[in-house]
């Protein structure tokens, strides 16, 4: 009997230690997620004591009447497609370069990682200055080099605003993936590289048959993390353009916020959130399954 109670104790200890985190997560992550679904079927202005059940009216509204929703969805998709490719390619290149024995590489790693630790709202402010049509760095540089024809109102032009914001996002996010890639590159076996060289592989062969396969798990993690991050893109856009001009940089996450918090139509805001949630789940669930399978296989 004393043996049984002893073996039960570590388990109970585990639950006790988990409890605070579990409560916080249930309260602030799971409950809101369920509540937002409930809210998306009701009509509430944020002030009245009760909400009315309205069925699918909110969804009908955002899909058929909302002038901004489809633009925000299109922007989110474009943003996501670019954000999982371009910054990660740059990060990968930087990681490969900084993994070589070059002088000053530790300093360079810090430099490239620095933007990651800056608050998005500060990044937004910095880039807003640089993009300023009259006093900003970019237009002044263009003028100095005599490229006056290239001068643009970077954040004020509907056609380029989204891409201007994206460049700032790229600058901010490159360091994060770079660190993940660098960690992955540390795991590439030096002997395997040598074996490949003896087998007759050149630089490309070593990369293709040794480095890349070893980085597969890292690539997957980087891909999914940047996917999730770009789907919920909010802060940097909010800080730089607030969705303008003329909703040309509007995103789903920001539109959900704007509807609920600024326009006071919580039901529609919730419906937009649910759409975003579903898109995220469809993409992320296969990844979570893949991770579990990998864990099982490694056992």
């Amino acid at each position, binding site marked *: 009997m004393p043996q049984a109670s002893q073996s039960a104790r570590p388990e109970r200890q585990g639950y006790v230690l988990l409890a605070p985190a579990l409560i916080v997560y249930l309260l602030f992550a799971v409950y809101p997620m369920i509540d937002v679904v409930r809210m998306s079927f009701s009509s509430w202005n944020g002030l009245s004591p009760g909400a009315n059940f309205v069925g699918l009216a909110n969804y009908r509204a955002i899909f058929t009447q909302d002038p901004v929703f489809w633009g925000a969805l299109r922007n989110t998709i474009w943003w996501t497609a670019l954000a999982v490719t371009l910054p990660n390619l740059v990060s990968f290149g930087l990681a490969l370069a900084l993994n070589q024995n070059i002088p000053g590489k530790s300093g360079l790693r810090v430099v490239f990682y620095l933007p990651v630790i800056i608050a998005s709202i500060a990044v937004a402010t910095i880039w807003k200055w640089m993009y300023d049509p009259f006093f900003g760095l970019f237009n002044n540089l263009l003028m100095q080099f005599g490229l006056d024809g290239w001068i643009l109102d970077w954040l004020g032009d509907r056609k380029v605003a989204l891409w201007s914001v994206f460049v700032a996002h790229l600058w901010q996010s490159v360091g994060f993936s770079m660190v993940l890639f660098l960690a992955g590159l540390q795991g590439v*076996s030096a*002997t*395997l590289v*040598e*074996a*490949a*060289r*003896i*087998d*007759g*592989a050149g630089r490309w*062969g070593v990369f293709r*048959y*040794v480095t890349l*396969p*070893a980085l597969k798990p890292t690539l997957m993690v980087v891909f999914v993390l940047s996917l999730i991050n770009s789907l919920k893109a909010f802060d940097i856009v909010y800080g730089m353009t607030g969705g303008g001009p003329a909703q040309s940089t509007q995103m789903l996450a920001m539109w959900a916020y704007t509807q609920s918090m600024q326009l006071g139509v919580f039901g529609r805001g919730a419906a937009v959130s649910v759409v975003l949630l579903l898109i995220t789940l469809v993409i992320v669930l296969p990844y979570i399954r893949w991770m579990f399978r990998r864990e099982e296989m490694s056992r």
Partner: protein
Amino acid sequence: MASVDISGVKKAYGAVAVMHGVDIPIRDGEFVILVGPSGCGKSTLLRMVAGLETVTGGEIAIDGRRVNDLEPKDRDIAMVFQNYALYPQMTVAQNMGFALELAGRSKAEIKAEVEKAAEILSLTALLDRKPAQLSGGQRQRVAMGRAIVRHPKVFLFDEPLSNLDAKLRVKMRAEIKALHQRLKSTIIYVTHDQIEAMTMADKIVVMKDGRVEQIGTPLELYDNPANLFVATFMGSPAMNILPAIVQDATVLVAGVATLPIVAEAAPGTKIAYGIRPDEIAIDPASPVKAEVIVVEPTGSETHVTARLAEHEITLVSKARLTLAPGDAIGLSFSPDKHQLFDAATGNRLAAAG
């Protein structure tokens, strides 16, 4: 298959010299083992032959062609690594055929070569497995198969058996030796295990601190070590070394023996007297008395460590001994089986007359 000539090879990392001019001639088809303690430079030398390390000075030639500045892939060598270094995402067959694939050989040709090598190494049933699904010994065989399919001029082995358990190591030792006899290829093999060196090599190169101490066949090194280092490194248990001194016309080994004088040794010269453990016998009648410290039966023989005056000596007996620590035993030393070394230089002294 080819000869390998290592002449005056030096290696330095910046200002730190780690190899100080090494000369090793290797004949076509010879099985040469580089042996020595950790940090003696044996692996560095092998990696220089492979082209994985640059050569600071001297020359390495394979089949008469200087290879110092050639890429590893252009040297016509194959290497087997200690940790096998198999490509985890490839099957056994793909691993073995990889070099041929890179060389642009046809699929049929690759398949034939891989199957032939798999046959030799009894890997045929495993060709579709991934390395993760193989045992250590099987992985080691795949690594060897990867080398065989290329028909290289020289095989390089870098401590290939170190990660295997004792039983498997003995088995693989025999397999590698059989493989060499079958392929008649030139092999350079690095190990820190002198038993591996003794049992497999045609020729052993004993290295220490970036220098060659002695080159010879296993029995030459065992019977005629050039110096104290080789004498104590080769053979297990190691040779016993006792301090001695030249007196008048004899060499006096404290409490053990008085021996005929050694050529060109002035009276008073300090000398190291070496005798192998199997040349010492337990002899109750002997006036040389020692106290047993440890008794280690191995089954076929018994190793006894005993204290003789202030020295510890080890002897090996074929007989089953019923000894306990603390027992007093008499020891007799085989006459003429000892070796004498200059205590100052460590070099071997030839016995006179």
